[in-house]
């Protein structure tokens, strides 16, 4: 048993997970300290509120509001958890987008643009195809696939520029992000999809509930009543698993990774390096756009079309989601959920204490910052392990090392 544990500890993957968890813990600790400082310096926040704030930063997802005596109560809160899963859906997708590109040696900072193009294509398809003629379920599939296709095309542009003109994909992506933001604004500006019926808000596109193309709940609403959750999260998890399989088990994944690690060697082996760079960016684009489609087809979200001034956060947040997961597609599921958990904690914080949700943004930022350090943290963990080993009795070492040494000598002898 003990040996098994040591083996597990020795594995590279384990150390990666530990490093990520450590980043999260430090991030949460720093967040708590910030809450403490803010509470201490502002006159209108009492000590009790500060303590509440810290508890909400850490356990906001389990908050069930305040009880009769006014104290915070905690427990299973299906609405919060449902909302967390709902908001995690696009984050998982953009996280996958960044992760898959990163595994193939590309840094996809173009997720926001791809996300916008996906939003545009899927909403236009969902709202534009008459639901009296085509069954809503079919429209939904067309809209989802169409959104991903738009993202793929948009993602392919930096890929093409990189492959054939050797222009850095980061630069090209930043450009395409803003081009997308303006195209989307213009396209909706001249469209018929502007919501003119509900006069309470302006600048929004119709929800997909308007013509019944909303994502199926797949029964999740009965598990998490009162929340926005729907089948999108299941689709996202399935796609994450598919991506994991693609990257680790298929020849296509092998080729993509080979190009990412050493383009020259890939070419030497007859792999079409240019095609693979474009393909990998297209896959990344499709994933980001798929996230947008799942989010806006849900039926309970509205899209504000004037995007030319700001890029969607969800796109950029894909980067920390991916890094925190060490770009492992399965890991992305968990880090995506974790990020949206912080988001939900933020709303609880705003609702229940004098603090506002920006504190959770600070916590998220800290974790993001630390996720970049997770490699360093991983090295520290490995270093500690080595030192421990060095301290072990030298006699044991010799014993352990002796057999392979002999085996080696024997092999060398007989091969000649």
């Amino acid at each position, binding site marked *: 048993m003990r040996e098994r544990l040591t083996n597990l500890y020795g594995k590279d993957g384990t150390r990666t997970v530990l490093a990520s968890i450590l980043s999260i813990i430090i991030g949460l600790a720093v967040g708590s300290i910030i809450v403490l400082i803010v509470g201490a310096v502002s006159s209108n926040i009492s000590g009790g509120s500060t303590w509440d704030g810290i508890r909400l930063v850490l356990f906001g997802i389990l908050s069930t509001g305040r009880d009769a005596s006014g104290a915070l109560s905690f427990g299973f809160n299906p609405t919060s958890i449902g909302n967390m899963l709902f908001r995690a859906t696009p984050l998982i997708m953009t996280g996958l987008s960044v992760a898959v590109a990163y595994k193939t040696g590309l840094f996809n900072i173009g997720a926001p643009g791809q996300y916008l193009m996906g939003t545009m294509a899927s909403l236009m398809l969902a709202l534009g195809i008459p639901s009296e003629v085509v069954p809503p379920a079919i429209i939904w599939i067309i809209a989802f696939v169409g959104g991903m296709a738009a993202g793929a095309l948009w993602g392919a542009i930096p890929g093409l520029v990189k492959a054939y003109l050797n222009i850095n994909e980061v630069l090209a992506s930043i450009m395409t992000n803003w081009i997308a933001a303006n195209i989307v604004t213009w396209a909706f500006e001249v469209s018929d999809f502007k919501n003119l019926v509900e006069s309470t808000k302006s600048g929004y596109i119709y929800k997909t509930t308007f013509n019944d193309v909303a994502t199926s709940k797949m029964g999740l609403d009965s598990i998490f009543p009162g929340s926005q959750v729907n089948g999108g999260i299941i689709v996202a998890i399935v796609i994450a698993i598919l991506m994991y399989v693609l990257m680790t*088990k*298929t*020849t*296509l994944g*092998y*080729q993509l*990774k*080979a190009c990412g*690690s*050493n383009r*020259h*060697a*890939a*070419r*030497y*082996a*007859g*792999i*079409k390096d240019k095609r693979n760079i474009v393909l990998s960016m297209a896959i990344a684009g499709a994933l980001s756009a798929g996230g947008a489609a799942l989010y806006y087809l849900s039926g309970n979200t509205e899209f504000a079309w004037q995007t030319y001034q700001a890029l969607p956060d969800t796109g950029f947040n894909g980067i920390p989601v991916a890094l925190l997961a060490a770009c492992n597609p399965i890991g992305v599921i968990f880090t995506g959920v974790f990020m949206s958990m912080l988001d939900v904690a933020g709303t609880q914080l705003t609702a229940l204490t004098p603090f506002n949700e920006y504190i959770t943004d600070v916590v998220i930022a800290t974790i993001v910052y630390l996720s970049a350090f997770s490699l360093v943290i991983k090295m520290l963990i490995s270093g500690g392990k080595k030192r421990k080993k*060095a301290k072990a009795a030298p006699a044991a*070492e010799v014993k352990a*090392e002796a057999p*392979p*040494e002999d085996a*080696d*000598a024997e*092999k*060398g*002898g007989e*091969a*000649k």
Partner: protein
Amino acid sequence: MAQQPDYIIEMLHITKEFPGIIANDDITLQLKRGEIHALLGENGAGKSTLMSVLFGLYQPEQGIIKKNGEEVKIKDPNDATALHIGMVHQHFKLVDVFTVLDNIILGAETTKFGFLQKKEARRRVEELSERYGLKVDLDAKVEDITVGMQQRVEILKMLYRDNEILIFDEPTAVLTPQEIDELMATMREFAKEGKSILFISHKLNEIMEVSDRVTVLRKGKYIGTVNTCDTNPQELSNMMVGRPVQLVVEKGPSKPGDVVLEVEGLSVPSHLHKRDAVKNVSFNVRRGEIVCIAGIDGNGQTELIHGLTGLDKVSGGSIKLCGRDITRASIRRRGENMSHIPEDRHKHGLILDFTLEQNMVLQRFREAPFQHGGFINDAEVRKYAERLIDEYDVRSGQGPVTVVRSMSGGNQQKAIIARELDRDKPLVVAVQPTRGLDVGAIEYIHKQLVAERDAGQAVLLVSLELDEVMSLSDRILVMYEGEIVGELDPKTTTAQELGLYMAGATRQGKEATA
């Protein structure tokens, strides 16, 4: 003044471990002032590791290092530099996109008010380069110059830092015969000036020629230290390998068969300039023969091979392989009848961050049984990798799952050789296949290439080493400035004659017209 100790550097009882392997096991090495001390051992014997310990790149688990009799701690290369220890690594540590001058002064820049004083630096470097005859183009980017020149840059880096202990990690592996002679002369010059040299090599004739003493390592263990004048190559190679080694290639006469590769008027553009590096070259290679392209580095051999294998586009002429015109075929299509042991194993040959087993199927992952319906069959890949590792004696820390980057250069090369020869293609293109390898490995690779020939494969070999060219080939084509200037028969040619062709002093075409 205190009495000068005998040894300038002493490494006492050094032990260094890596996961799964003891790279250095209680090794002692003592370097006298002003001597050239050779460190001899097979690939993976722990020579590079020992030197990396001295240079501060690795921390030993046990053992101490003394300079001038006093114990010193070398925690990183900065400490080593402060102790005037300099090192030319086997794989050069240069910034590819910097100029030669920038690389030399990097980390030791002369500044005035925080501004670089390149003029002063340039003057010093030029002076050093003049004094030791180390010709370099100071304004060329490192990525554009030959490996030979890159090495001179590395040597100048050490001199620029006033180092008195110079470590050369397999310096001759990448050099032409002439360059090797120059390097030897330079090293003797250094020693005469009182600099002490540690010279890692496994080329016995060089060690015999230049060194004063030799320390032999084998599989991480200390075997012994001998005076060069008291020993001979055979004894050294036996110490190194642990068994008697054959130093000459044994092969029967060749029985050339059908033409496999036909090259007609081929021209290939240069990497460096706009002109063609290969000009109107024609030759053929038949089944059952080893044709060697000899020449000094940088005379178009690299471009010729790139043109043949498809890594570069050709600018003229035609290539026929097994009767099919492949002049414009994709690399993959060419690969159907050709295996290629590339010149640059790190750039083209391997994906260093992949595991050994993933690298073993780099050319074959599309074939059954390694894939089925687009899915990689891990079990088959593992089985195949294990077979190759066993058959070709590729040594590594963790077997098939070892990350290739962590393997020694020789074993990386063996992995490539295993992968390429096992593909069993009619044409084997091998570019400097034994570069940087020890006698045991060279003997093995030479045997393998001869075996390929005897099995009816056509072998096209590119080599910079005269010995290899003379002993291994059945036919020699000499390249000089992008042209084939002579076709020679090794049985009737002397090394001197070959050298004249390589240097461009003689050529067959001209002789004929004259």
